[in-house]
């Protein structure tokens, strides 16, 4: 019943490059799109989120690009650092609080 599809499953980039993580969804009632990151041994934690009234949300080196027509959104991590190495989960939620997560992208940033 996966309603949020995420790709790639794993991604390796060099320090300083931009990492791009992609997600798509099907349910038109989704109106909140967060990204969570999870470091080894830790629980997922909110990184950045967007609502469909915007098509872009920036927070430092992290940017969400949102395409409502195509039901796609992506996370761009600029100037990637080794400390960004983690698993990133996209998610989507209607206004009922239930949050559905993608399967995750394991990002490795090489120095």
């Amino acid at each position: 019943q996966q309603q949020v599809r995420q790709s790639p499953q794993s991604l390796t980039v060099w320090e300083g490059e931009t990492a791009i993580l992609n997600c798509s969804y099907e349910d038109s009632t989704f109106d909140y799109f967060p990204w969570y990151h999870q470091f080894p041994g830790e629980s997922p934690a909110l990184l950045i989120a967007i609502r469909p009234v915007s098509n872009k949300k920036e927070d430092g080196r992290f940017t969400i690009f949102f395409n409502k027509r195509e039901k796609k959104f992506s996370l761009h991590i600029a100037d990637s650092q080794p400390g960004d190495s983690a698993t990133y989960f996209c998610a989507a939620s209607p206004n009922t609080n239930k949050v559905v997560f993608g399967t995750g992208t394991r990002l490795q940033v090489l120095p």
Partner: protein
Amino acid sequence: NAGVIQTPRHKVTGKGQEATLWCEPISGHSAVFWYRQTIVQGLEFLTYFRNQAPIDDSGMPKERFSAQMPNQSHSTLKIQSTQPQDSAVYLCASSTVWGNTEVFFGKGTRLTVV
């Protein structure tokens, strides 16, 4: 604020035994979620309570899994007749109910069924 508290952190059960997992949400949070995390499936939604009432249990395997929230300070997830495929990290999370807001996760219970 101690965050979402889950106990035990690790649990090993024999095949066919029962496992009960406990969660204490953040004080003041009225939405409580249970997720199951595995390498293959990622973060699977199991069930969701709002103000202690079950709202959505569409992710729960119906026959052996059950969840309750008897009061606002704790929720339990019970797995009867555990099977090896139930081995996973079970995450509890909580949030406020006012619109879409950040979900705060506990550290999880790693269940191993041998």
